[in-house]
């Protein structure tokens, strides 16, 4: 701690940024080559991508909202990661959050609540339900050592199918069946439960979830870097035996940290429903949980890393969708690019740190 800032952050941090930039640019170049070999116009593709990612106020807002959901899942991931727990259950936690938020928002009593409670309560309920879903995996881990990678993944499948079931059943969340063509999805949630927009006049679809997300990111950064709990989680992650001997409650920490990760996922689900989609349908989580997991992995424990990776992936997704619609470039290309970025960054870190780890 007495070291000058430059010495602590200088080399490693700078290199991490450099590696990430190189990975992004490199994979963009590979993607460009792929577009060209497919016989499509590179210029059209790039223009469509830029247009979709940040070309209009709407596009910009949509990209940021995507990034927000990814960042929330990523934040939960790095909290759990600090205690050496890997939460791969973001997808299911989003589904649970979306489902619970929809159930609350569609309740007329909730929709009638004053003072913004109409939209806040579903969010809180979704976070709580996500926390319970995550805590379940934590409890299994603490109680009988069940690997949390497997339990969170399997719990994800359960949650995703539960959501599917809930929008299929009129007794649950499915909209009233007026004809045989009524889609298996919920009614749109009432306006009072939708997240208020911040820049409606500018045509930016940004909602109050954004400041909430920023506050949470700052909170996570503070907890991990400055709080007693942050140090204790680190001790658990690095040497659980020594942490136990030092009287740190490992069981409570394991359950708690997985609950936090789940709460972040649940909240992401609520924001996706109440901020953008307004209707709960099958396929609601559509891979955000897994992209969020990748965001968390790429961030390597850093909050800033989560924000950066989430932005990158959010813009990539938005641009990719537009690229397919306008320039006939398949979205799969964006997935290829994501993959290349992951491999490049992970490979670079292995190359740099793997070598150092050899005695």
């Amino acid at each position, binding site marked *: *701690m*007495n*070291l000058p800032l430059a010495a602590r952050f200088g080399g490693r941090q700078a290199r991490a940024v450099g590696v990430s930039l190189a990975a992004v640019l490199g994979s963009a170049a590979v993607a460009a080559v792929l577009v060209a070999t497919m016989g499509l116009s590179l210029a059209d593709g790039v223009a469509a991508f830029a247009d979709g990612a940040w070309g209009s106020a709407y596009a910009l807002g949509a990209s940021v909202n995507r990034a927000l959901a990814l960042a929330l899942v990523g934040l939960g991931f790095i909290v759990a990661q600090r205690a050496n727990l890997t939460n791969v259950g973001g997808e299911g936690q989003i589904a649970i959050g979306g489902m619970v938020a929809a159930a609350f928002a569609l309740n007329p009593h909730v929709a009638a609540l004053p003072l913004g409670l109409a939209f806040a309560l579903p969010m809180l309920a979704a976070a709580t339900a996500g926390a319970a879903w995550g805590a379940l995996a934590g409890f299994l881990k603490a109680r009988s050592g069940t690997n949390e990678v497997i339990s969170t993944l399997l719990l994800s499948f359960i949650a995703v199918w539960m959501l599917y079931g809930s929008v299929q059943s009129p007794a649950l969340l499915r909209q009233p069946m007026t004809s045989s063509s009524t889609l298996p999805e919920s009614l749109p949630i009432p306006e009072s439960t939708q997240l208020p927009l911040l820049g409606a006049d500018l045509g930016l679809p940004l909602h109050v979830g954004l400041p909430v997300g920023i506050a949470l990111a700052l909170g996570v950064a*503070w907890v991990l870097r*400055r*709080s*007693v709990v*942050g*140090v*204790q989680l*680190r*001790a658990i992650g*690095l*040497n659980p*035996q*020594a*942490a*136990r*001997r*030092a*009287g*740190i*409650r490992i069981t409570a920490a394991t359950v708690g940290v997985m609950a936090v990760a789940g709460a972040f996922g649940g909240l992401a689900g609520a924001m996706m429903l109440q901020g953008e989609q307004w209707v709960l349908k099958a396929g609601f989580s559509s891979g955000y949980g897994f992209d969020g997991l990748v965001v968390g992995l790429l961030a390597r424990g850093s909050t800033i890393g989560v924000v950066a990776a989430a932005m990158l992936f959010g813009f990539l997704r938005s641009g990719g969708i537009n690229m397919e619609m306008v320039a006939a470039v398949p979205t799969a290309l964006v997935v290829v690019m994501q993959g290349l970025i992951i491999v490049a960054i992970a490979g670079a870190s292995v190359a740099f740190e793997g070598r150092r780890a050899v005695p």
Partner: protein
Amino acid sequence: MAGVAAPAAPWRVPDSTPVAPGPGAAPAATPPLLHIDGIGKRFGALQALGDVSLSLRRGEVHGLLGENGAGKSTLCNIVFGIHAPDAGALSVDGAPYRPKDPADALRHRIAMVHQHFSLVDDLPVVDNLLLGQARGVLRRREYADRIADLSRRYGLGLEPFKRIDELTVGERQRVEIVKCLMREPRLLVLDEPTAVLLPEEIRSLLQLCRQVASEGCGIVLVTHKLAEIREVAQRATVLRGGRVVARSDAPDREIDDLVRAMIGRTAGERAGGAGSECSRATPAPAPANRPAADPALMLDGIGVRDADGVERVSNFTLTVEPGEIVAVAGVEGNGQSELGAVIAGMRPPTSGRWFVGGREVTRATPRELTQVGVGVVPEDRHAVGCVLEMSVAENLFLDQLHRYRRHGALDRTRLERDAADLMQRFDVRAKGPGAPFASLSGGNQQKAVLARELTRRPLRFLLAAHPTRGLDVGAVEAVYDHVRSARAQGVGVLLISSELDELLGVADRLVVMYRGRLMGTCPAEPAERERIGGWMAGHAA
């Protein structure tokens, strides 16, 4: 040395009269099977081996004795090509031998069974043996026949098509041995093969050793159990601190000398000797002075069974009064680790009860033990005592971080100031309180752990398990000075170590553990050395 033409050296059964296979008996012209000449090996600051020489004849079982950390495994790993020596040379059957890697060692027909098995649990025995040996087409049938042959020949009772996870630990070890035997080795290295075995399995393993040796193979048997050496070894070498401290051509008759060599007898070399007299000049406050006080520690019939149901500690009863240092002596692996784990709160005993300051803590968590005033210097500093990647300050207050909370955040300024104080008091040398714990030398790490454990309030009782292992002489003295000052403050101390001289130098009373039992209690006086040595070797008083 025993000639190549006479491979079947007479090996011994437990109580056979010694048949002299002595080095002088055979013609000296033929080179030994394995000759190790002045091997040295250094790992960073640690001199793991220094000038170690050893030679082994065909058909000989050679016992390699020593405490943990004495360098036995390092020596084996050098023979098997895992480590390259820094100094010295090896030869096999007279030809220079310098293995590049284990595969190279195997090509020289030198095989090793490691302490930890490398078997695939889900595969049958035969597939495990095929792994790494078969090329091209898998001739499973042929291998199975060979396994069955070997199993019959050596009475191993192995079924080739049984899955590994259906086998007992002893059977798994026999699979590892068969893996070696299929290569028709001329030298077999067994690294602590009996540590994991039940008594009857040990007997059959030793029988196997005899048979394999009788066919001309040389065997290096690493152990710290003396009974095994007495039973099968024709010769023995004792390592201590990386050096050869004793050799015996008749270990069955010289077992007591070997014990003494293993645990160290040279007074003055260690903290014991002269230092012990000084410490005794200021005797501990006699427990009788404060009859009203509850004992610092009371173990009442503690028993510990491991996961396999083997009893590691049995009916262990011991009392430590406030202001008393009680030493637990014994050859390692006689239940001391399990006893230490119970007292550290890392596992509950399977039977019996125990108390600290009169309060029952039989099933207390480490956190609760800290609250009643138990300090623990754990046996494995790195695994339990500290978090290497974290700073010295964080490690010093890992259990008290909640006291350094300011506006909710961890007050690092105050934490590091207090850490710097503590580091000065306990002479912990580091770049600063923020330095990573891993950057400290072993001695300073141990002083830091002591600093944490001895400054707990309340502190009624301290468990120090091997507190001086791996430390240099200066650090050893410092550690014991701190332990003595804790005693002066009325703390009861239980000191577990295999360094008898150190124990005699610092403790008030000494008990000996052998096979999980308390063999005897005596004042920690050098005059008791013979009696203690006997207990350690398993002779009842």
